[in-house]
């Protein structure tokens, strides 16, 4: 019986794989492929250093700075907006099933939209530029932060709450002294993590016109200025790596 099941699973899985691969278009190398790939690589190894800093116009540092600013501001907005949802979505804090359910639903609803979709919506709403990026990432992050933080509120040890109530603390004081200290380290850790995510996302969102380093990248790509593409990619790599290292160290200290 077990064997038959195993064989059936094997046959079904291989059938799916065969069907999937036969559906693929034939992989062909275009004549220009080799040329383009080698051009990208030569661009990466001979980056356009003059683009790094250009006092007069738009340069790499300006683009990276914009990206960072978008990430920072959007994380800040999300960090504040997620607080009420995070607590309202936890049965430890709110007794009403309706309130918890509604908050959870709102958080899931926000998480449904990929950052790119949100960015496209906001670009239509407020026009292209950094502001659209800030709004997209700011709103988008609420879904994730709210869920993670409300889960950490769910795991809070409630025994201290009992002690505070017994000492004559009202609900607000109880919340501040018994719940907040337990959630705060996780809260900051999640915020830092989301900041890392937002830096990467902000770099990409520029491609569709939501401000930051992605915009010069897509321009450079469309005019095949590989040296410039190279320096921009290098800049993004350095920035993302640095931020990941710093934020990782900070988070390790928090927990």
């Amino acid at each position, binding site marked *: 019986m077990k064997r038959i099941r195993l064989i059936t699973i094997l046959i079904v899985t291989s059938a799916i794989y065969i069907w999937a691969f036969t559906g693929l278009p034939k992989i062909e190398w275009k004549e220009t492929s080799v040329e383009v790939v080698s051009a990208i690589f030569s661009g990466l190894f001979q980056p356009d250093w003059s683009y790094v800093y250009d006092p007069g116009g738009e340069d790499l540092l300006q683009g990276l700075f914009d990206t960072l600013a978008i990430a920072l501001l959007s994380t800040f907005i999300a960090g504040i907006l997620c607080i009420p949802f995070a607590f309202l979505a936890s049965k430890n804090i709110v007794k009403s099933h309706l309130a918890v359910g509604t908050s959870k639903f709102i958080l899931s609803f926000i998480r449904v939209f990929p950052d790119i979709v949100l960015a496209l919506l906001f670009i239509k709403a407020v026009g292209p530029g950094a502001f659209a990026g800030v709004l997209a990432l700011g709103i988008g992050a609420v879904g994730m932060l709210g869920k993670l933080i409300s889960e950490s509120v769910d795991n809070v040890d409630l025994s201290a709450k009992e*002690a505070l109530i017994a*000492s*004559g603390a009202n609900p607000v004081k109880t919340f*501040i002294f018994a719940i907040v200290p*337990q959630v705060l380290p996780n809260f900051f850790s999640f915020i830092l993590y989301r900041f890392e995510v937002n830096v990467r996302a902000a770099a990409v969102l520029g491609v569709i016109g939501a401000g930051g380093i992605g915009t010069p990248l897509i321009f450079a790509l469309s005019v095949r200025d590989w040296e410039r593409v190279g320096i921009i990619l290098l800049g993004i790599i350095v920035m993302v790596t640095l931020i990941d290292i710093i934020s990782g160290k900070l988070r390790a200290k928090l927990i």
Partner: protein
Amino acid sequence: MIELKHVSKVYSNGTRGLNNIHLQMEAGEFIVIVGLSGAGKSTLLRSINRLHDISEGEILINGNSITKAKGRELYRIRRDIGMIFQNFNLVRRSSVMRNVLSGRVGYHSTLKMMFGLFSKQDKQIAIDALERVNILEKAYIRADQLSGGQQQRVSIARALAQEAKVILADEPVASLDPITTKQVMDDLYRINQELNITMVVNLHSVDLARAYASRIIGLKNGEVVFDGTAKEATREVFANIYGKNNQTMNQIGVAK
């Protein structure tokens, strides 16, 4: 100072936790409540500061009804009643000092407490409390770094910082080893003697009850079956409280 008037408690599932309890506890007493698990010791203690609501009767604290109190009045009455728990109930991530200071929150406005604004006087009270239980040197260590006995002493310090007139202790030594048990019970006894703070302590060890109590109350199935001095609490009395099962008697430590 604590008066229970015909107090009964029926849980929502129909079980009777307390049945017509009528007691008067005087200031300065060291009362130990004994009984089997499920006899209603914890329910009785938690009814006194209204962590549990009672179904019938009334409880008066210094003449004020905690049963009828609402909002601020309730917080005010609770402020005068400290509580110590079996599992210490500290905020494990916070420092010892902050845990002890949390006993002071009842004295300040919510706004001040949102920003953690304690006065110098509060800090001095917390330091004195820690000193009294000999744990001042741990003041700035995180609570979860301490041993069980030390954590229980921090929770005693929290009740002291609260400047409570009564301390309720729900199985304060149940999760401690024999040596720390003695230290913690000695601390409670000293506080009772030196500061004249009334103690109401739940224990299941009869030996401990005999050693420390000025008055023992025996509970069985939510009813008071004994109320008298430690001397009056003879082997027969405990047999009545715990049932005449010899094995149980040995487990709870009644000398033969």
